[in-house]
């Protein structure tokens, strides 16, 4: 069942289309990773989902309700953490957490102190004295202490240290195990790779690819390193082979997933001594979409 449903979402600022037809779903009990560089439209999408911005076109629904019209009803069941947490300098962290929990209403869990401890936050300090990471902790504690059905995180760990990042990841996994859904927008691709069931990649206001990590991997290339008894010839004549590098008797190259079979058949003729294959990382995927737009078009044609 889709907890969150975005269909053909468009948002215009003046003449500029920040979103140009975004489509994706987040299903129940699923962690959905939302990745893309700055300015691609991640935060704009999230702010429309929160009913803070009004969509120019298209629909954004959470729990089957309209994100703009039924904002207050929806918000009783969600928890949100922005990437840039700006707090009131003269309130303490503890006061802000209480305020946030209270304003959310809905289900209250009394886990505030537990999460303050887990995130190692001093709630008696004024927000003015908090670093970026500590302000994020305030928002995270308030979010996890709420017993929400859907969590929306917009680059929540950008100021946290590796230790706290792990605490965050553990908290997200616990939420998932409790059957909650999560929309996680992040720059930290290793984090998305580790946590997310499905991923959507956004570029210039459009989702250009979405699916499970293994589905996405099929769309891309595998890295192979091969050592053969005899030198491999005519490798570059095969379809879907890229970045061939030869060093002594070792050849490394990338191969399109659908050409893997043909490539392995070809090289096996030369007597394989060693064969290493590595699946593409999310970073490879991401970079491929962003760095080599032209190459992608060419690869698709071959």
């Amino acid at each position, binding site marked *: 069942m889709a907890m969150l449903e975005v269909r053909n979402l468009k948002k215009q600022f003046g003449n500029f289309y920040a979103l140009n037809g975004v489509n994706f779903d987040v299903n129940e009990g699923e962690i959905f990773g939302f990745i893309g560089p700055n300015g691609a439209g991640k935060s704009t999408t999230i*702010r429309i989902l*929160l*009913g*803070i*911005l*009004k969509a120019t076109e298209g629909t954004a629904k959470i729990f089957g309700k309209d994100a703009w019209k039924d*904002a*207050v*009803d929806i*918000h*009783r069941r*969600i928890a*949100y953490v*922005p990437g*840039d947490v*700006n*707090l*009131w300098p*003269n*309130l*303490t962290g*503890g*006061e*802000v*957490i*209480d*305020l*946030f929990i*209270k*304003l*959310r*209403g*809905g289900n209250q869990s009394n886990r505030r102190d537990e999460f303050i401890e887990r995130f190692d936050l001093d*709630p*008696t*300090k*004024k927000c*003015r*004295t908090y670093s970026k990471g500590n302000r994020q902790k305030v*928002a995270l504690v308030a979010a996890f202490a709420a017993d929400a059905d859907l969590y929306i995180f917009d680059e929540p760990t950008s100021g946290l240290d590796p230790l706290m990042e792990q605490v965050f990841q553990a908290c997200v996994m616990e939420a998932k195990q409790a059957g909650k859904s999560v929309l996680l927008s992040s720059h930290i691709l290793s984090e998305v790779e580790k946590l997310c069931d499905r991923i959507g990649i956004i570029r210039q206001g459009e989702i250009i690819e979405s699916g499970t990590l293994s589905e996405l991997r099929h769309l891309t290339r595998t890295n192979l390193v091969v050592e053969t008894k005899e030198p491999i010839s005519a490798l570059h004549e095969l379809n879907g082979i890229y970045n061939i590098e030869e060093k002594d008797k070792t050849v490394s190259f990338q191969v399109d997933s659908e050409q893997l079979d043909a490539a392995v058949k070809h090289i096996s003729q030369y007597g394989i001594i060693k064969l290493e294959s590595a699946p593409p990382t999310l970073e490879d995927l991401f970079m491929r979409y962003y760095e080599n737009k032209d190459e992608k078009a060419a690869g698709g044609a071959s």
Partner: protein
Amino acid sequence: MFRTLTNHTGTLARLILRRDRIRIPLWLFGITFFTVIIPIAFDSMYASQQERDAMAETMKNPAMIAMVGPADLDNYTTGVMTAHNMLLFTAIAVGLMSILLVARHTRTDEEEGRLEMIRSLPVGKLANINATLLVLAGANLFLALLNGFGLYALGIESMDLEGSLLYGATLGGAGILFAGITAVFAQLSESARGTIGYSIAALIIAYLLRAAGDVSDSALSLLSPLGWVTKTEAYAKNAWWPIFLLIGAAILLFILANYLNAIRDLGAGFIRVKPGKKNASPFLQSPLGLALRLQRTAGISWGIGMLAIGISYGSVMGDLESFFAENELLEQMLVAEEGYTLTEQFIPMLFMVLGILAAIPPILSAHKFIGEEKKNRLEHLLARAVSRTNLFSSYLFIAIANGFIMMTLTAIGLWSAAAAVMEEAFAFSAVYGAAMAYYPAMLVMIGLALFFIGCLPKFTPLVWLYLAYSFFALYLGRLFQVPDWAGKLSPYGHVPQLPIESMKWPTAIVLTVIAALFTALGWMGIKKRDIEG
């Protein structure tokens, strides 16, 4: 040793000058402008000795002495009058300049981590504080000369060279002293906010100490640096000893600040910050409670300010008759009405000005909505189960209540001080009625502010323009014989002139309805627009 501690002081001083190349000149020329414009105004408004003596007469009461200090009232020349009315307040402004500039270049830079980068370079430990004090001393010296020669250049008979230079030196001396005070607090406090807070508290305490000392004519004033300021009596006795006192005390404070800076760690202070609350009180846990909490300090400060303004106007009510009789210019501004005293005729004009002034805090309070929006903090609330209308209504409610409280405090201040100095005191209901007659006009201004916030957030500053227009059209308009319709373009132009006119309820109702319409439009607008951030 001291040389290595202050290595590159000159370079840092140049950096400060570069960073403040607009800020410092603005302060200096702003202050100098007011210093020279006032005696010109006094010289034309109170041209004859008779008029000045009448003014001196109004100064002979404890309220005025508490406010501006003592003076040679029997020899009230334009020079004495300028020094009496302006020197103390200008010195406070100069003190404020020093406080803000010193805090900016010491604790603020330290708190923001800029000083850490500077200190990682081959720069002396005490270079920054001494560069700051060097620049401030220079700026204040320049200010002293600018004001001294500026006043002398006016060529007003009673303002000789010595008095003028002393006037300037007093301002400069006060500025240098408060630079020293702030430099010490910048060492004691751990935050920029604390530094500014403690320093301004010192300024206020100095003022109050002097007020108490002057009224009781005791040595208490001699404990206050602002007491020393009034003791110079420029253009009368021309006493120079307070200048030496100011500079001497400043040097001691500079040394103390250097010592404290030398013995502490970067980022540390001497006054411990006590931990804040671990939990939010139930009061805080709503959009309304939060908005009130955020505006608490500003609201209380404005309330005290409006009360004080009311009191200061009320305290001159006793001498108004004689004062107006001597001053044609002011008499001209009042509508001649049979059967009412001049004081009573003065009331509506006074409340018009106060009503415009009292509209500032509620508009600021409403504008806080935009401020919170721009800082991305409304997002925290709207992302939770808080509707836009609920949030907007909180600010609406606070602004309306704020305006009511401000007007009430002003009326209370004015009435109570007037009751103390007048032989036949006003009835409170008369004064309060005259004040509250302006409340519907104020509501129109608040409504307009809310309309802009809801519908056209980029245009919110236009309210200030309209408020300023109201002031010029109605207050100065009387002086320059601006046509009537110009005043009618402002809601304040329709308010009945209580107590010389009777209350016009239809006008009040129409103004209130207009205010409600604006507010309703803003309320509908906020439901539709994007929340920026």
